[in-house]
């Protein structure tokens, strides 16, 4: 009799974010020799490729699938087929997903966006122009963060949102070019909110080259190692993230619990930093959403503590 297998499917293989997540996936497998864990992902960031990967996992009949969807809605079909075949499905970053048993969120996305905005507001003195970036308009969480930020900014009538939701297509150079153009159109802009993990790299470079480190406030999601040099120079003022390794670990742990038939209750401690006291609410479908408080804020002073 083979061990139950949990396969984690990420948005795209190879990006630093998901390489870090793979560490968590492997760690759970090492800590628990009753299950076999592994991580795969498409070679291109395309929802269709991800759906095809999962399709094959369903045919292969693995025990559980843990997915970080490129696009939640386009996976509904295949995940439903997975459920029909008796495969346990858990997801991450997909609170609108119907065909999942458990969706795990590191935090409330709207609140996360608002947090960014709060920092930007504080930094720019609650007045002036600001803008937001998204990896792509199709990335649900990025849009949620941008919208959460915009919502929060309404508290400050002096703040003006301009040219919102610029798409960087997950390419630092595109983010850079867009940021340059925004600086030209709005020379007095003070705040940037990044969406994709490399947006701040591109924005930071544009700000640095324009010599505006001290006149602008750049916040966004990012990884400490990638953003380090811009944090040093002050072009990027702060980044936030949740540790993908922990997210990977938690996803596999939850999947394992589902396989074993254990219930996840409100306030439960999942034994991972940030998920010590999770909130459980009803999901979009029959499943539940488990929300942690796993964000980490990092700036020039402390980014060195994180080795990824």
């Amino acid at each position: 009799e083979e061990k139950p297998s949990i396969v984690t499917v990420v948005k795209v293989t190879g990006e630093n974010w998901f390489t870090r997540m793979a560490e968590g996936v492997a760690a759970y497998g090492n800590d628990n020799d009753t299950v076999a864990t592994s991580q795969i992902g498409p070679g291109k960031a395309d929802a269709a490729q991800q759906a095809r990967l999962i399709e094959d996992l369903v045919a292969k009949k693995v025990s559980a699938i843990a997915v970080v969807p490129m696009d939640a809605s386009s996976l509904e079909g295949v995940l439903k087929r997975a459920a029909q075949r008796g495969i346990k499905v858990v997801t991450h970053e997909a609170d609108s997903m119907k065909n999942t048993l458990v969706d795990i969120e590191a935090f409330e996305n709207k609140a996360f966006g608002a947090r960014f905005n709060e920092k930007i507001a504080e930094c720019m003195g609650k007045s002036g122009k600001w803008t937001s970036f998204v990896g792509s308009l199709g990335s649900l969480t990025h849009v949620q963060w941008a919208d959460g930020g915009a919502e929060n900014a309404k508290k400050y009538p002096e703040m003006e949102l301009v040219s919102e939701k610029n798409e960087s297509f997950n390419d630092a150079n595109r983010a850079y070019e867009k940021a340059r153009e925004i600086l030209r159109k709005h020379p007095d802009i003070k705040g940037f909110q990044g969406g994709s993990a490399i947006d701040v790299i591109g924005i930071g470079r544009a700000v640095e080259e324009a010599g505006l480190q001290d006149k602008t406030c750049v916040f966004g999601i990012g990884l400490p190692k990638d953003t380090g040099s811009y944090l040093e120079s002050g072009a990027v003022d702060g980044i936030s993230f949740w540790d993908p390794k922990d997210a990977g670990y938690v996803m596999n742990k939850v999947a394992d619990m589902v396989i074993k038939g254990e219930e996840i209750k409100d306030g439960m401690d999942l034994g991972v930093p940030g998920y010590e006291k999770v909130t459980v609410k009803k999901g979009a479908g029959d499943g539940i959403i488990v929300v942690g408080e796993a964000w980490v804020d990092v700036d020039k002073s402390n980014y060195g503590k994180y080795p990824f």
Partner: protein
Amino acid sequence: MVAFQMDRQLGFLATVNVAAIVAGAILVGASFVELYNFQSMASQVPELGFLALGVMLAMMSGNGGIDLSGIALANLSGVAAYYFLRDVIPADEAPLLFTWSLIGLALGVGLVGGMLNGFLIAKVGLTPIIATLGTQLLFTGLAIVLTNGSALSIGYVEPLDDFGNATILSVPQCFALFLVVALAIGAILRFTPFGQRLLLLGNNAKAARYAGIPEKRILFLTYTVCGLLASVAGIVIAARTSSVKWDYGTSYVLIAILIAVMAGVRPEGGYGRVICVVLSATSLQMLSSLFNFMNISNFFRDLAWGVLLLVFIATSGFDFKAWFRAARS
């Protein structure tokens, strides 16, 4: 009526298909060769297969013919059809009407999109690569504008869902449709005046004109059919994902071309066989699934596809003698 011809391409592709199944049976075991997996693989073929058929037709028409706008139009068809329909026909109350209306609307969008390509290429005279790159951006852009970039979830609509997931005689419905359409296109190409004219046009456009072949009409029709095929792909995508979105399958542009050229369709026009496109699509699918079963990275799969393509052209066209002669001189 006409003898079915076995040629090098067909032999090669059939071999790859069989080899993938045999390799799967040996390396993976029973789970690869059970019915469910064949159904699963078959139902993954059509979205790409319809697009590849479109690329084939465009390439066959010659003069740098290509359709880069296929997946963009597929997505736009789905997005637009659902966008305009969702408030008009309640999917829960009239699922059948909803489904057929969705299909009709999507085909309509595909028709219009295909006609736009056909108009630009045949009537205005744009280079196909420019025209379809432009419309690719346009179609994608329109889908973004309609949805603000987010996905629209269709939810569970039984007839639509059945089309994406159910089977008839153990064959997934969408794959059966793909076979029927492929067969129809094969028949059209082979046996109708339109098909023969398209072939001749791709062979020698000038001679075609002198022979009275209405080149503009043929080109226009060809790209219109490409548009229709794209919208069928869009319907398949909507049925299988229960949602519509502008950026689904962005990697398909190149893969559809890969399938077509691997099927031996000549990029300079005038030659292409539907059966080879079908086999080319299934062989890529089987290899891909095989690698996924074996937990081999997707990058490696792309590597294998590339190598397979190169091996294919090497075996079909390599003239060792000529090469050595040239090397000596």
